């Protein structure tokens, strides 16, 4: 059997944003949640990873990031960033260039962390209204985004690909033979 995976859509969106002819200055950061890696994928590490990508897309790491680094390094063994500091920096860096954050499969993120991630995104949008956030997940997470973790101004789209997509996918896989498939 051949199926599409939701992360194919996320990666397609990421590549589209990166390859846009008019989007040379686009900063695009992505994150793919994995239920088997929930321990490592805390809200802190995830938001930190987004900030890392946005910061590294710039020619020079912004002063506010290096300043924070130096400040925290003063503590013996180094001190960790706070989520609120990451949110502030992401918001401020996103105000200087077109910035896109893409987070895939939010349902695979632990519930507590998901609440923190969504709240942080909401705060970042408040600081930088021009930022664009692309999210995927099962419908119940969509309900959260429209309900208890409400993010204002969210366009909801249901992924149910037209048949043509599925047929093309099957044809490609058949043409490539079994070597591209994963055997269970």
């Amino acid at each position, binding site marked *: *059997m051949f*199926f*599409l*995976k*939701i992360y*194919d*859509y996320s*990666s*397609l*969106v*990421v*590549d*589209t944003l990166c390859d846009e002819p008019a989007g040379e200055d686009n900063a695009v*950061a992505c*994150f*793919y949640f994995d239920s088997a890696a929930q321990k*490592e*994928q805390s809200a802190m*590490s*995830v938001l*930190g*990873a987004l900030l*890392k990508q946005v*910061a*590294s897309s710039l020619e020079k*790491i912004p002063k506010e*990031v290096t300043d924070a*680094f130096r400040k925290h390094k003063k503590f013996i063994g*180094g001190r960790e960033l706070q989520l609120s500091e*990451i949110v502030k920096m992401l918001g401020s860096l996103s105000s200087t260039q077109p910035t896109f954050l893409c987070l895939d499969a939010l349902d695979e993120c632990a519930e507590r962390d998901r609440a923190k991630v969504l709240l942080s*995104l909401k705060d970042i*949008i408040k600081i930088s209204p021009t*930022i*664009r*956030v*692309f*999210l*995927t*997940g*099962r419908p119940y*997470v*969509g309900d959260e985004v429209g309900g208890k973790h409400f*993010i204002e*101004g*969210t*366009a909801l*789209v*249901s*992924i*149910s*690909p*037209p048949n*043509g*997509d599925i047929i*093309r996918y099957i044809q*490609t*896989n058949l043409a490539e033979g079994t070597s*591209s*498939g*994963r055997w269970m």
Partner: protein
Amino acid sequence: MTAVTDNRSEVLTWLSPLEPHLRHNDIRTTRVKDVGDWLLRTEEFRSWKNGDGQGESQKATMFCSGNLGVGKTYIR
């Protein structure tokens, strides 16, 4: 020069040890050409990307929901 480079990677690693671009590169190599293009053609996607929605339709966030069997299942 080396010191500057080292410092850059040290700062970035301090922000997060995770390397999501590696996962992205894995996925994009197995993605099938043209699949999912319908999503890029939707009005929702275009106005989200360009940020050119007017008033109420101006959306900073786009959420794509998929159920098991639609987008989440593995290829076998």
